[in-house]
């Protein structure tokens, strides 16, 4: 009985260890996916040039609401002023 119990304990521990290894490996794969995979994927699918523009302009394309997007803070007044103080044009549309 003792031997069987020990055997199960060892197996359980090994199983736990395997899960920890699996987690560690997953985290490494995740890191590699971001640092190596995403730039490579950009090149592979032909998005690299566009992604470089986005990176250079410091746009966070994942931001999902207008207040999170830094560029909006300049865009909004520019659009408002373009319509409000439109040079040399009728202002009847607005």
């Amino acid at each position, binding site marked *: 009985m003792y031997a069987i119990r020990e055997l199960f304990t060892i197996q359980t521990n090994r199983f736990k260890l395997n899960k920890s290894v*699996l987690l560690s490996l997953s985290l490494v794969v995740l890191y590699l996916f971001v640092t190596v995979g995403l730039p490579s994927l950009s090149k592979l699918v032909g998005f690299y040039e566009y992604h470089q523009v986005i990176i250079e302009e410091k746009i966070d394309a994942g931001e999902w609401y207008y207040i999170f997007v830094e560029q909006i803070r300049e865009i909004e007044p520019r659009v408002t002023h*373009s319509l409000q103080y439109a040079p040399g044009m009728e202002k009847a549309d607005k």
Partner: protein
Amino acid sequence: MSIPTSNTKSKFSFLLKFEDYWAIWLGAIILIFSMFVYFGNPPANMSKIIAESNATMQVESERAPFKTMAWFDANAAKTKVKGSSTPAAKAVTKYLAVPATWSSDNPLKSFFLSESGAKAQGTASAEKYTKAKAATAEAKGVAVGAETAASGASFKDAELNAQAKIQIAALQEAKAGEAKAKSAVEAKPYNHLVTMIPLMLAMALLFGLGLHFMGFSVGKFLIAFPAVFIFATLAFFIGSHEFAKAWGLNYVMWAIILGFLVSNTVGTPKWIMPAVQTEYYIKTGLVLLGATILMNKILLIGVPGIFVTWIVTPIVLITTFWFGQKVVKMESKTLNIVISADMSVSGVSAALSAAAACKAKKEELTLAIGLSIMFTAVMMVVMPMVVKSIGLNPVLGGAWIGGTVDSTGAVVAAGEILGPVARDVAATIKMIQNILIGLMAFGIAAYWALVVEVDKSNKADLSFSTAMREVWNRFPKFVIGFIGASIVFTIIYSGMGADNANVLIDNGTSSFLGSLQKWFFALAFASIGLSTNFREFGKYFKGGKPAILYICGQSFNIALTFAVAYIMFMKVFPGITEKLLQ
């Protein structure tokens, strides 16, 4: 006297016992604090700069048939006045920083930049800055000459006017390049780990306060909270990689994935679970989000903008939901509405609001967000390619992108690929669409309480008052805080006037609330990952129906948005298009 007091206590004690009410109380505390910091400390000379800039733009718009250099300078001076740049605001917001952008060769930069590192970065960019300054000076000389020549001909010579317009545009581009180079030269050292610890403690105490009244063990929560906070921080870190940002894969996705990895391998340790409070974090974040749903913005781009956003979007939302129920035959109504909302309105923000309003399961929210992120990553590059290839007018192309690409960041990115006019129009259209989520969430909450949940429950005859009480019981109460915050801030915005509100709300309270919300939502998504079994997803993705619904709905959205944008911007209101093209 003691009896009525006791009755009153028990009558209102529910206000301190439920998560929805605590989301409202915490939201209210934060909103009041933000008003105190930003409204109480306006930037120096705010009114003077605004008045002078407006006067200059008015005079210049009447003097010349194009935007002169003085017009652009006035616009820039006004835009620089920000509520977030006051010392009081800076003292607060420095504690809300998230990990910075990093590239594969230097991950540490996300958290830490030393004095020497900042200096080295500045030195490396110095040459670029010098060149950029020289380019601006040269462009300015040419632009001044061109504008003087046009002015000399009393702006009557079309060729001189066109030449001046081109040179002034070149000057603006050179100035933008110089500003970018300058920010690289002026890089300052930082250590985000130092500011994150006080933030973590403040958030733990804030949420712990509510949990205490709700009957949870605050001690256990405080022990567990740092773990969830670390997951949120790691999610920000991964999402801050330059290519993750370019692909639109931000912390939302990584928080869920990191949580998944733990919960589906070693399992989420039990001691962390007291801080896994998905709905509490989401609802509090949404109450804050309410304060940024400013109805004053819906007329930003005039009537065409209303048609492209507030007419097309609800039609697409309702049609897609109907299509999901009747044609695709979605198993879950809540999954159907969350996908319909995120696809038609504005991605993650709409999915979150819709999911909270109809009490969707966290797996359904995750699935809808995953679909949105994946399709957006592709659409934000493919859409501008299509616009370019068919040679669309940039205003029309921008409106089309703004109305169809899900997330605001992706819309700005897609617009940037097309050029400044398309980018500005796309971003403005998306911003107006963002404002729709308040009404959408209220509509969904009301529909669920009045129709869907009634269908589920037995339809025994109820008196009117009993029926109303039932509806009230089913209605998610945090939505009241969400809508209430929107109404209060919309009224304040109107009271201040658009110019002052732009400084104190758009560039003040909203930027503070936005930084805090990001943390709340990161905690929420990390909690989702930590409490979700990956196998559960199989049943929600049965037959690929969610993807079919998304694709069909988005196809309809693309077609209808294009048609309405074309009619509005090209046929009905060409004057607005002309102004935007300038």
